[in-house]
């Protein structure tokens, strides 16, 4: 590897553009008199120095901020495309996706589906894109932070005049007592909370260096955040279950290893009225009813550890609680969220075994629709067998079937055994229907009444990744604030044969920097720097000033 030797005698690593020792421009940079590019203090970065192995090539690819920006823009475009039509996971499709998108949105919907955009955010290429941004974050940061840290740590106070002249803020003045002025400058700068170092008549004042670490801190935060998101796929970190409980029922909470049980005492929906607030009058008239509250009154139990396997557990009450939207019930690392509900679902049906001819009844059976019995004995030789049960009855391919396990539309096949017909008669009963598939019957099951009940729909969630994600988010914000709200300001002052030179550099907010310098040196003979970036730009509009990163 070839090193670059500066005029001052210092040997710099290849890729350096500003001499580490004296600040003279080296390499290509030394041929012009333009303002120095102060990014990363002109140090050599790994990506500029090495390009031999495949690792170097990958490193160099991801170390480019341009590549990073391209990845960000691609992720931006992809994310936006995903909002054109609803995503499959959010759309409550009533048909398979391959039909749904075409039917609802025409040919464009079909293409959207075929390209996989209906499930864009979990597609392999979207995840790869986000992962590449993660890789780019790590490599870009390492590639820059390390040399920048070293350069700032070992920066030398005396700089060559050419370095100062090529700063955006620069001025020089012939004054009598340079030494006194340098001492005065030191005092004034210290008052403004600058760290000042004097070395052989040269002065370096520095403030806010920590803001240069802001971008790297926020990148670390983002990486932790992304790691947290990925941990979701590790078993044990994440539980997401649905739990439907009807009023009066006690059920085991899924995902808790049979440890916790929940009783739903009551589910209620409350609506706003004008009594809540007179100001709601117009809105209530316009929109009709507006829901105020969805709430489940529940009791949480823990299963006793003494319970023998296979036996019904002994339940120990933990607490009574009200689960509302925005107010989940939390126990251990589990939370129960109010997510949905079903009102007035049929819970049981009562039917009477009836002789058709006379209308005489031989007893009633009540079928618990979530837990039906196989046989109902009415005594005196009258028996009703429940041969099959379809909670949500439909005809599929000419056969009776059920659409869901919920008793939305219950249907039954009964075998009625009576003293007259000991071999039994088959009857098929659905709402408003009575079929006799095996020929004319003498008996029927007549509908008497039904009981209704409310269901609450809860989401059971455990997410152990949240603390990691939260820490990542917090570090990100700290980093962004650190890098955005503060700036790294440096002032160099040098005396040389009765001349006083002053130069200044900041990584942003030049206007405020100039105001500060003006204030610090007001009323003294110390020259106020001129903004050379501005003058330069007036001459040559294509050359824009440069901020420095980090």
């Amino acid at each position, binding site marked *: 590897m070839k090193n670059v030797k500066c005029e001052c005698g210092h040997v710099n690593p290849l890729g350096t553009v500003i001499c580490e020792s004296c600040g003279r421009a080296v390499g290509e940079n030394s041929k012009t008199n333009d303002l120095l590019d102060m*990014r990363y203090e002109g140090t050599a970065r790994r990506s500029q120095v090495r390009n031999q192995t495949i690792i170097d090539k990958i490193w160099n690819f991801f170390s480019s*901020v*341009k590549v*990073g*920006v391209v990845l*960000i*823009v691609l992720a*931006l475009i992809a*994310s*936006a495309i995903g*909002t054109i039509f*609803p995503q499959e996971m*959010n759309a409550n499709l009533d048909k398979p996706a391959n039909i749904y998108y075409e039917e609802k*949105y025409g040919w464009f919907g079909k293409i959207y589906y075929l390209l996989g955009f209906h499930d864009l955010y979990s597609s392999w290429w979207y995840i790869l894109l986000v992962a590449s941004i993660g890789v780019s974050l790590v490599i870009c940061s390492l590639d820059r932070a390390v040399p920048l840290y070293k350069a700032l740590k070992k920066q030398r106070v005396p700089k060559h005049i050419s370095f100062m002249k090529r700063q955006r803020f620069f001025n020089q003045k012939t004054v009598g007592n340079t030494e006194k002025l340098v001492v005065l400058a030191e005092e004034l700068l210290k008052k403004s909370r600058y760290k000042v170092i004097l070395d052989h008549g040269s002065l370096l004042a520095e403030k806010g260096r920590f803001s240069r670490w802001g971008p790297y801190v926020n990148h670390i935060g983002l990486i932790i955040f992304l790691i947290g998101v990925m941990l979701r796929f590790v078993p044990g970190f994440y539980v*997401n279950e649905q739990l439907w409980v009807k009023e009066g029922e006690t059920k085991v909470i899924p995902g808790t290893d049979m440890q916790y049980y929940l009783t739903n005492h009551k589910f209620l929906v409350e609506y*706003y009225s004008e009594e*809540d*607030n007179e*100001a*709601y009058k117009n*809105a*209530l008239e316009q*929109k009709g009813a*507006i*829901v*105020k*509250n*969805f709430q489940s009154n529940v009791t949480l139990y823990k299963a006793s550890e003494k319970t023998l396997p296979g036996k019904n557990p002994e339940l120990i009450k933990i607490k009574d609680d009200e689960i*509302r*939207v*925005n107010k*989940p019930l939390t126990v251990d690392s589990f*939370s129960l*969220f*109010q*997510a949905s509900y079903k009102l007035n679902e049929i819970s049981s049906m009562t039917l009477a075994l009836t002789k058709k001819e006379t209308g005489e009844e031989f007893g009633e059976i009540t079928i618990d629709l979530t837990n039906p019995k196989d046989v109902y004995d009415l005594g005196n030789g009258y028996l009703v067998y429940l041969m099959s049960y379809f909670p949500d009855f439909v005809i599929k391919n000419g056969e009776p079937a059920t659409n869901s396990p919920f008793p939305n539309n219950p249907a039954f096949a009964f075998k009625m055994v009576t003293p007259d017909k000991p071999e039994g008669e088959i009857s098929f009963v659905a709402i408003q229907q009575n079929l006799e598939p095996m020929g004319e019957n003498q008996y029927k099951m007549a509908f008497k009444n039904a009981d209704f009940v409310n269901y609450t729909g809860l989401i059971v*969630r455990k997410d152990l990744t*949240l603390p990691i*994600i939260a820490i990542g*988010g917090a570090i*990100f*914000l700290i980093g*962004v*604030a650190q890098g*955005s*709200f503060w700036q790294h300001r440096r002032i160099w002052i040098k005396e040389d044969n009765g001349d006083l030179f002053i130069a200044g550099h900041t990584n*942003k*907010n*030049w*206007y*405020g920097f100039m105001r500060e310098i*003006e204030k610090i040196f007001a009323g003294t003979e110390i020259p106020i720097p*001129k*903004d050379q970036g*501005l003058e330069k*730009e007036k001459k040559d509009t294509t050359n*824009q*000033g440069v*901020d420095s*990163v980090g």
Partner: protein
Amino acid sequence: MVELSSNFLHTSFILYLIAIVFLGGAIKQKKGINRNKDEKAPIAGKIGICITIAGFISQLGYFITRWIAAGHAPVSNMFEFVTFFSIMFVAGFILFYFLYRSVVLGLFTLPIVLLIIAYGSMFTKDITPLIPSLRSEWLTIHVMTVAAGEGILAISFVAGLIYLIKNIDHSKRTKKTVWLEVIIFGITTVLGFVIITSIFAMTGYKSEINWVNKEGQVEHYQYKLPPLLGPNEWELQTENRMEPLIELPAIIDAQKANTVVWSFLIGNVLYLLVRLITRKRVGQLLQPLVKNLDKDLLDEISYRSVLIGFPVFTLGGLIFAMIWAHIAWSRFWAWDPKEVWALVTWFFYAAFLHLRLSSGWHGEKSAWLAVIGFGIIMFNLIFVNLIIAGMHSYA
């Protein structure tokens, strides 16, 4: 209380109008990094700022009284959010005035703020009770922080716009002048929307139209603007009302499309009138107002407002949003369109910062980006709420 609240809002509207006049009188002021220290700020500018602050306080009065009346922070529907955004926009301007003492920034900010207030008041102003998912202190925290972030980011748009008006060569037609005119035309379209909606609201125009939707069912629209575009198989229900000129297929929301067409039409008329009367591009007309400005200062204001606005937006639009989503929906991220567009906005400003830092996108390029960024924010506010259905469509 509700009446008092809207009086405060009207007062601030008028105060901002007056402030524009004074700020306009102060534009000769020259500002820059190498400024002449002896130069004093013109008195008109100071009066203008005082009136702006008075207007801002009046808007705060609106906000507080409405909060008391509603019993919750008034940020729960389109009218309330747009109005609160306008408050934060003015707050952003006041903050940057005290950082950079730039009067012209106000001259451009306030007309846009007026337009935003007017746009917001086109939506229903009824106080709506909160549905269960909105009943949380996070509504206040999340929405107010997002609006604050967006208000500060909007300053970068204003500074960028001024930069472009000042710096683009208006003497001949180029891609740049065309795009600048497109932006200005976009603003005129909003003005067109406000004007036409107000006119027909004042005359009490209503036209009931039945139509047949894609599933073949009859649906009902109440048009508040004369139907240039009618829905599929329309049937007028109100007598003596104009018949739709064009019938749209059922998959397009004809009523919304009709409003958009009217807005463009009126915006177009306004824009063309200005062009015809002055025989100049609008950007060219505005250029003399800003010729004294130092473009480096504009660039710095634009950049600084992104630097301040980006962390605030991230906090409100992503972090607080995730915390609330976790509490209300049980998952911190649901890929809801509004969420995705907050992420898109965030990606965009992240790209903006990286381009600026490492690829030297300063000055004009940076100004274009600032303008596009605001476009994305407005898209998320208007289009995503009104067109793309999701968990955030409250209007």
